[in-house]
């Protein structure tokens, strides 16, 4: 059967960067493109263009039909079962579109970037460089396919980011930097005023870092970077990796392999969450589901194509709003520090990677060393190394502090007995 899905997307973006309290750059753009996913005689291809006049679109259709004849058939490439489509029966607003978006004047955007800069510029004589950026965007996406599915999304986004450098002392710590950001679909909810001071404070706290001796440590991973250790799990559950036998989670469905404290849920209809959506890019209605339930692998992310290839039931091809449940209501990093008494708070990762086939990982880290429940000094030039499965079995607790500024709602995480390499 010949099938087609057409995806039309357009967006408008702008940004203003303020460097050392002066406007340094302004940027504005508008883009639109169309993408055809064709399945003809079992042959599959994706063809896209941003040249949207009739002549160019006809040219790309001709190119598509010609190209598909040149490859081998793959009868697993089909549109989804129509029964799984989003029918449009739930029309609740997901809180991702700011109706006042177009009412915001360029001068207001510039003022936000400047006002954020003014919060800390000149407040600390060690400040070498301060960059404040405000950016916004409006996205529109329309999907239609030959089985009759049609759906559209409208989202807006507003981002403030502050990056500052301060001068330190000592041969190996001449500079320390601090970064903070916030993001919201609604400009009125953007918390731009706290970001500058948080960025500056993080830079100051990073001065005069030390290394630690190699050994096993308790670690707490701050919420703003904790998704780093969740990503290998999400990637390992991806159906394409499972089908290619390239996952440490292969044949683990239904097994308890992580700590029973770990519950990861896909919550696609959570109001205001950045990844919230009623349907995915196949038009399939999204639904709340367990990803990891009390340490047990609940399901893989299986697209229609992978389901056909593996002869199993499809799910969704990617989670919308992965959310990790806290182990204790109201639990904070400070309370974790008190409970663990000694260890490391990871404030940022510096490189590293994981082996998807084995789950082995090794990441560079920086952050703070704490002892007797109090922060002692900043640490740097350290690696943590291990295996994702054993690492997550050393889960101590999960805080109740996730923020809505990212698509993944990951709170701060505490682990015990983590291998740290240093001096």
């Amino acid at each position, binding site marked *: 059967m010949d099938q087609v899905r057409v995806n039309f997307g357009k967006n408008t973006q702008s940004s203003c960067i303020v460097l050392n309290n002066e406007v340094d750059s302004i*940027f504005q753009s508008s883009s639109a493109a169309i993408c055809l996913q064709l399945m003809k005689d079992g042959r*599959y291809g994706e063809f896209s263009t941003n040249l949207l006049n009739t002549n160019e679109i006809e040219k790309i259709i001709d190119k598509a039909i010609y190209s598909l004849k040149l490859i*081998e058939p793959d009868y697993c490439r089909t549109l989804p079962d129509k029964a799984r489509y989003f029918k449009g029966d739930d029309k609740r607003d997901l809180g991702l579109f700011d109706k006042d978006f177009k009412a915001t004047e360029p001068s207001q955007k510039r003022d936000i970037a400047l006002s954020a800069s003014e919060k800390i510029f000149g407040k600390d004589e060690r400040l070498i460089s301060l960059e404040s950026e405000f950016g916004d965007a409006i996205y529109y996406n329309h999907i239609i396919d030959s089985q009759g599915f049609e759906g559209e999304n409208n989202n807006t986004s507003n981002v403030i980011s502050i990056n500052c*450098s301060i001068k330190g002392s000592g041969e190996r710590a001449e500079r320390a*930097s601090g970064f903070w950001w916030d993001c919201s679909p609604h400009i009125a909810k953007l918390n731009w005023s706290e970001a500058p001071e948080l960025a500056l404070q993080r830079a100051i706290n990073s001065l005069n870092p030390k290394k630690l001796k190699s050994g096993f440590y308790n670690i707490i991973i701050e919420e703003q970077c904790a998704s780093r250790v969740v990503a290998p799990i999400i990637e390992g559950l991806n159906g394409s990796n499972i089908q290619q036998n390239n996952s440490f989670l*292969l044949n683990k469905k239904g097994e308890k392999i992580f700590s029973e404290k770990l519950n990861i849920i896909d919550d696609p209809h959570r109001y205001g969450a950045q990844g919230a959506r009623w349907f995915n890019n196949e038009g399939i209605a999204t639904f709340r589901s367990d990803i990891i339930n009390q340490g047990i692998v609940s399901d893989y992310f299986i697209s229609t194509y992978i389901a056909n290839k593996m002869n199993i039931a499809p799910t969704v091809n990617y989670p919308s709003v992965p959310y990790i449940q806290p182990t204790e209501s109201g639990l904070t990093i400070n309370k974790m520090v008190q409970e663990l008494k000694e260890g490391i708070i990871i404030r940022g990762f*510096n490189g590293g990677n994981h082996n998807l*086939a084995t789950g082995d990982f*090794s990441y560079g880290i920086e952050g703070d060393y704490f002892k007797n429940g109090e922060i002692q000094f900043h640490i740097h030039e350290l*690696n943590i190394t291990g295996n994702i499965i054993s690492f997550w079995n050393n889960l101590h607790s999960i805080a109740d502090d996730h923020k809505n500024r990212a698509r993944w709602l990951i709170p701060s995480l505490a682990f015990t007995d983590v291998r740290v390499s240093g001096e």
Partner: protein
Amino acid sequence: MIKNQQKKGECQNNGTLFNYERFGTNPDDIRRVLATALSCGGNYSDIYFEYSIAEEVTLRDGEVNSTSYDVDYGVGIRTLNGEKTGYAYSESTTLEDMLSAAKMASQIANSTNEISIPPINELRAAKNRYPIFDSWEDHPIDQRAPFLKKINDIIFSKDERVSKVIARISTSYTEVLFANSLGESFFDIKPLASVVVSVIMEDNGKIENYSSTKSYRMDFSMLNDELIEELSNEAVENCASLFDATKPKGGEMAVVMAAGKSGILLHEAIGHAFEADFIRKGTSIFSEKLGEKICNEKINIVDDATVDFNRGSLNFDDEGVPGQKTYMVKDGVLNSFLHDRISAKYYGVAPTGNGRRESFRYYPIPRMRATYMESGDANEEDIIRDVKEGIYACDFSNGQVQIGEGDFTFYVKKGYLIENGKLTAPIKDINIIGNGPQALKDIVAVANNSVINDGTWTCGKDQYCCVSCGMPTVLVSNLTVGGE
């Protein structure tokens, strides 16, 4: 005979004709847009047209069964007012839309200005570093598919533990037309082709993966039996070796960086920190070290746009500066930062041709090209022999750096322990971390075997750029190695 030279246009650029027709424009309209971009003041404007076709064909589970094709077209207009930038782009190149984008970019300045743009002077590249003799366009995907099939068959024949192969050929063809308010203009055709082969092997319930890649600014002649042999050997031999590999004991130790891919050390440890936007803003740890001796006098480090067919090579950078070779470190002394037009003007030096952008959607910023260390006078065997206890790192997947602090990392996909001057057990999957200036000082031996690696190196700094890196074998006396 260069096929892509056969374009209509007004004059010839080193064999390549200026293709105004492609973008529906002409020199007079371009000058009008450039003048509009300076209508509120500012000291410089430029316009960057781009037409790009990206095509991909993929083998999965033994069949060449998917393809993709993307056309991208647009124009970016930039106004500079000192170090300040106004930028807007349009996906339409009608004069009306270009003038609208130019007006937006002009808002970075706030005075009035009546400027006359000089006549367009069409610059010629000293040499076309990536001529096209046998265009990809003339070889549809059914002529590329047999290459993928052959790789697949050879890989499966090499080791019975191979369970899966994904192989992909990605090509792009990009035409760029550039002009600026100084009256300079160039036209360039930039090919880029990559082959990526990922293999999965299974052995007694254990799974390992490995990806082998090659990428050049080359035409269809890139696909040959030699490349098949190289990619398939590298993928199978390296993947098989991982089954026996373990993690070393973690901590500080001597690290011998093997020739080739170890260039990632230069890219992360010093390359980014030499990019002059970080210098101008004072955020780089090397900001105040120009002219200082920063490492062993036997060390020469280059960022080079002139290597024929190299992934990082450029006839012109993306703001009209000819491709060139820049000594970042000469005889151990910090010789030059990597400049775009903004930083070059700020420091009163000539631009080094490092102003690059991902596409017309971005304004150019200082970026690396092919970054490598030249050969020294030691040999690899002697360097290894001098290490009592350490590791030999020969394959890497990714790296990162903190510009201000200078702390950098790179992830070792494969290496070996060094025990009493000999390579012993294989190791894998460890992160190495160090501090850029200190690591440079700690390079105590440089071998005579420098080589540029031609993998699919891609650098991310707000926008992506294709680069390459290279290195002779070197001994770094102390780095922090992740491990057991």
